């Protein structure tokens, strides 16, 4: 049976923990709003570039050798998994669920006899995968001191990806990230970025309208467009990831705050019981003393 003083200190410490989780929840909520806005602001560009790419890809003669970024290397041996996670913990199962999905893919691909390489974006995922698959990691990129992800970060990732692709270091690349659905639901997702897959049905915009003129040629445009498309895909993944992270942290901290509240209630009850018991014993002792006189 803990003493009254012990209980009091415990209540105090749980209360201050609750204050911290509450503050973290509110910070996450504010950051989430900003991250959501950023994700929304980036959407027009992504949509337009998808339409443009779909138009161009549809215009290519089928079967003709197109740019490597669109058609692939013709091989399917080496897979690069870009695992994008958060830089910080305390966000529920956010990082773990992305890592789990990546791990499932690694096991499946290795079972098929393919070579797997890892490109870790974000510290937390790296820490989790390091133990099992440390030797597969070919590249690491942390954005620890970046306040909010911008296109520059995405360009950094995609430039590195393109360099490696040019050097023939892999045949296919997937990005793993948490797709943001709502505050309570973030779905770990794998998105193929290389070779680029233009979305189906996005070319409804022009249909059989007059043909485009290209300045400079069609191929040059496609060549400068594809790397940008890859960058945009990576950017989208990073933005969604940022929103998901804050959403996950917000609900995790909300839970923690609630749990701390429950705990305080329980401890308070215990404290009051103990206090009453003490008063009762004191009274009994006084009465017993008075009687014996």
């Amino acid at each position, binding site marked *: 049976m803990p003493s009254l003083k012990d209980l009091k200190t415990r209540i105090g410490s749980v209360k201050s923990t609750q204050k911290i989780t509450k503050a973290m929840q509110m910070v996450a909520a504010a950051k989430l709003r900003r991250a959501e806005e*950023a994700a929304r*602001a*980036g959407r*027009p*560009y*992504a949509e*337009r*570039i998808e339409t*443009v790419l779909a138009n*161009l890809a549809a215009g290519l003669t089928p079967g003709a050798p197109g740019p490597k970024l669109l058609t692939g290397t013709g091989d399917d041996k080496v897979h690069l998994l870009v695992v994008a996670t958060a830089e910080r913990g305390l966000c529920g199962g956010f990082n773990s669920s992305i890592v789990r999905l990546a791990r499932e893919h690694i096991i499946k691909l290795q079972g098929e006899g393919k070579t797997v390489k890892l490109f870790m974006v974000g510290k937390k995922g790296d820490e989790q995968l390091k133990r099992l698959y440390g030797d597969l990691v070919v590249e690491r990129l942390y954005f620890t001191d970046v306040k909010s992800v*911008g*296109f520059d970060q*995405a360009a950094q990732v995609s430039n590195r990806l393109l360099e490696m692709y040019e050097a023939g270091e892999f045949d296919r690349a997937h990005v793993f990230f948490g797709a943001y659905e709502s505050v309570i639901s973030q779905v770990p997702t794998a998105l193929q970025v290389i070779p680029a897959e233009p979305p189906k049905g996005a070319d409804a*915009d*022009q249909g059989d*309208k*007059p*043909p*485009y*003129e*290209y*300045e*400079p040629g069609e191929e*040059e*445009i496609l060549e*400068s*467009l594809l790397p*940008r498309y890859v*960058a*945009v895909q990576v*950017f989208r993944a990073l933005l969604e990831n940022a929103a998901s992270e804050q959403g996950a942290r917000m609900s995790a901290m909300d839970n923690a705050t609630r749990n701390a509240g429950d705990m305080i209630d329980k401890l308070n009850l215990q404290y009051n019981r103990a206090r009453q018991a003490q008063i009762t014993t004191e009274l009994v002792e006084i009465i017993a003393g008075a009687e014996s006189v």
Partner: protein
Amino acid sequence: MSQFAFSLVSPERELFSGDVDAVLVPGSEGLFEVRAGHAPLMATLSPGMLEVHRGGTVQKTFVRGGFADVSPNGLTILAEKAVAEAELKGDVVADEKALAQKTLGDSAADPDAQLDAQRALGTLENF
């Protein structure tokens, strides 16, 4: 003068969207102007000033890298970087200049990139 829909988007946000009279676009093959009813055209951009004419006013924006997409529905500029003239000062200009200088140094073998970098420096000189 008839107007047409124009939107200027960068990866981070949509900078402009609305009806305009004419837009002067710094294409990589030369400056061109888009007005209502322009034939469908897809062009790459070179660094420079984009001029948007709208009801007698001119709005200037520095753009670097990207595409101009003229479709029957209007003109869309997808710019890698877009900075309004009013915001073009201090660090932003310094960063862009540094980038252009770097391209100039790195791309000795690529005349197109050289030209682009020189254009960027030329445009930024006045800021």
